[in-house]
């Protein structure tokens, strides 16, 4: 209660300060339109921004704000990396890529950079990782840092888990397994949902009606809940064969996701089918194949590509959530969701060993970073294509 009063009082004080500052600015600049027409809310916004910045600087110099410093450093490194990457993109490459990079905001180039790094990790996991993903070592629960004095081991930079598996290795293999499986799932979902959606759009009539009804009903069940239900059944079918469960998971999530893809593909398809150039092609007597592959698909690639990105994020998060709940990707495959669950209790040691506490966050952060990156890129693509329409 008292905290609430403090907050309200503080805001009022800030409001007063911003009013005074605005007045001051008006007098000093001789009533320039910029300050004359400035609403008080905007002035307050500037003052608040300054307060937040000042707080950040203060926090930086606090001795125990380790995580905050890491966060700021990480942010700075990301910005610099994205900047360098964009600069590289602008100077190296063909004319079209150069042009694309020139219009790109920093967020999007950061997204591309991250996706590139993940792709390399996923493809070359076997080369990059120091050990095999299922390899078990004698040293159990080695702390990260590689320094023997703090319970680390130079052979295991990020330490080992409860049964002695190297965590750095598993983090790298996680890229291959988690990202790879999510990608396969999305492709499957697009193959099924996309083609059915286009067929429904082109044919219309009863086919469209039936498919749309089915999809409506399937979409009425929240996807994670539906996935959990089906996974229960799948786990009974799979029995003791763990790899089969992973296959079932791919199929189940692809099925659930294909409903969303169907919706979009149908909507995009329908908006193209009513175009006059499709009508002209129909009247010319063109066959169905020509209509779909030459007239409709080339014009649907932009929205579909954006959707592919968003769907990938969604599938990736669903799979991670399932794994986190213990019903997704099964051991011995290394996977980030499972890692978070296994390492979660380390968070409680944050005060003693920030590095150890960072471990589960690193796995979770690896998931977040990729989805953020993809979202940044998709956001930019959507922005670009909507800008072109205007």
């Amino acid at each position: 209660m008292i905290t609430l009063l403090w907050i309200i009082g503080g805001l009022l004080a800030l409001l007063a300060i911003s009013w005074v500052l605005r007045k001051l600015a008006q007098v000093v600049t001789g009533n320039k339109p910029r300050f004359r027409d400035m609403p008080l809310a905007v002035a307050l916004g500037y003052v608040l921004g300054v307060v937040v910045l000042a707080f950040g600087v203060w926090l930086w110099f606090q001795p125990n704000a380790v995580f905050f410093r890491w966060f700021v450093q990480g942010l700075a490194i990301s910005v610099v990396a994205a900047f360098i990457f964009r600069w590289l993109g602008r100077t190296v490459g063909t004319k079209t890529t150069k042009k694309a990079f020139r219009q790109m905001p920093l967020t999007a180039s950061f997204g591309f950079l991250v996706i590139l790094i993940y792709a390399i990790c996923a493809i070359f996991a076997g080369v990059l990782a120091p050990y095999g993903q299922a390899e078990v070592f004698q040293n159990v629960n080695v702390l990260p840092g590689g320094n023997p004095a703090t319970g680390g081991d130079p052979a295991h930079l990020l330490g080992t888990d409860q049964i002695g598996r190297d965590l750095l290795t598993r983090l790298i293999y996680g890229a291959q397994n988690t990202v790879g499986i999510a990608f396969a799932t999305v492709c499957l979902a697009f193959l099924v949902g996309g083609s059915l959606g286009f067929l429904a759009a082109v044919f219309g009539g009863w086919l469209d009606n039936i498919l749309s009804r089915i999809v409506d009903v399937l979409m009425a069940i929240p996807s994670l809940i539906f996935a959990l239900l089906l996974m229960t059944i799948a786990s009974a079918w799979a029995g003791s064969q763990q790899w089969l469960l992973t296959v079932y998971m791919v199929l189940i999530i692809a099925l659930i996701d294909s409903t969303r893809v169907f919706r979009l593909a149908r909507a995009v398809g329908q908006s193209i089918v009513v175009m006059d150039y499709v009508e002209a092609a129909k009247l010319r007597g063109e066959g169905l194949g020509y209509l779909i592959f030459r007239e409709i698909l080339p014009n649907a690639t932009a929205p579909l590509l954006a959707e592919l990105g968003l769907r990938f994020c969604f599938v990736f998060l669903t799979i991670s959530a399932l794994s986190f709940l213990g019903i997704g990707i099964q051991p011995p495959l290394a996977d980030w969701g499972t890692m978070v669950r296994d390492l979660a209790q380390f968070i409680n040691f944050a005060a003693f060993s920030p590095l150890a506490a960072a471990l589960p966050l690193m796995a979770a952060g690896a998931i977040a970073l990729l989805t953020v990156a993809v979202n940044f890129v998709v956001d930019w693509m959507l922005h670009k294509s909507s800008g072109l329409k205007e």
Partner: protein
Amino acid sequence: MGLLTLFVVSIIIFTAVNMLPGDFAQAILGQSATPEAVAAIRRDLGLDQPPITRYFTWLAGVLQGDLGTSFAQANFASFVGEDSGTRTTVADQIAPRIKNTLFLAGVTAVIAVPFAIGLGILAALYRNSAFDKVSNVFTLTSISSPEFFVAYILILFLAVLNPWLPSLSNIYDGMAFSDRLEKTMLPALALTLVVTAHMMRMTRAAIINLLASPYIEMARLKGMKPMRVIVHHALPNALAPIINVVALNLAYLVTGVVVVEVVFVYPGVGQLFVDSVKIRDIPVVQACCLIFAAVYILLNLLADILSILSNPRLRHPK
């Protein structure tokens, strides 16, 4: 329409569960059970009836609030040789947890809805400003993060590094409201962060769309003050999209609740659901699934109805 969908969904859930291979009873009792015991369980649980009969028995039960008997409990009961009459039903198991989950969702909604709508409107009004750009990056990040990432970060900062809030939500009946609120705070905050981002982006988009409409320009050209333009001209038309956004996000909350409850060991339906999935306790899974689906469908339906009600074109037909 909503009821029909719910009916079809219940069929799907039921058939899905009945696609399980082998014999439930066998699975419950294990390989070593005698055929007589298996048959007894089967009769007891009604598993010897044809599927359609079983579906309608189940549905009739559901409508009367009887969600069946938990296998886990049945298993336990037959093990200790107790009389089958004392077994806990699924309804008994779920009821208190529904209360807890609704409490969590309620606290989240109370924090998230005003917060998100306020920020969304601000971002729309000052679009392309520094505030808008920062909040865009921030919301994109929090949408993209898995719920458990957000949850663990909150635990790290608010529970471990600064012991302000408890990280485990061991809620029980008869707890004082303030204690309960305190224990629910962290999961509610985690959910808030995730939902706010969605809600804020959708609100922003809706308001921007609205502000671009010619009648807003007209109001400005009539010399109306910015406040009046927003309150009198924009708000009545913004109601429909905002209500829609809120309902859709509450529906989204239903899914988010599962993971967050597991992270904080919050005794809600989500937690029960995941536990039951792991031990394949079919009746509980069925019931939880139905409840989640029902809430989800109802909220979506509500969104549709409210947006029709708040649309002047539909309220005042020609």
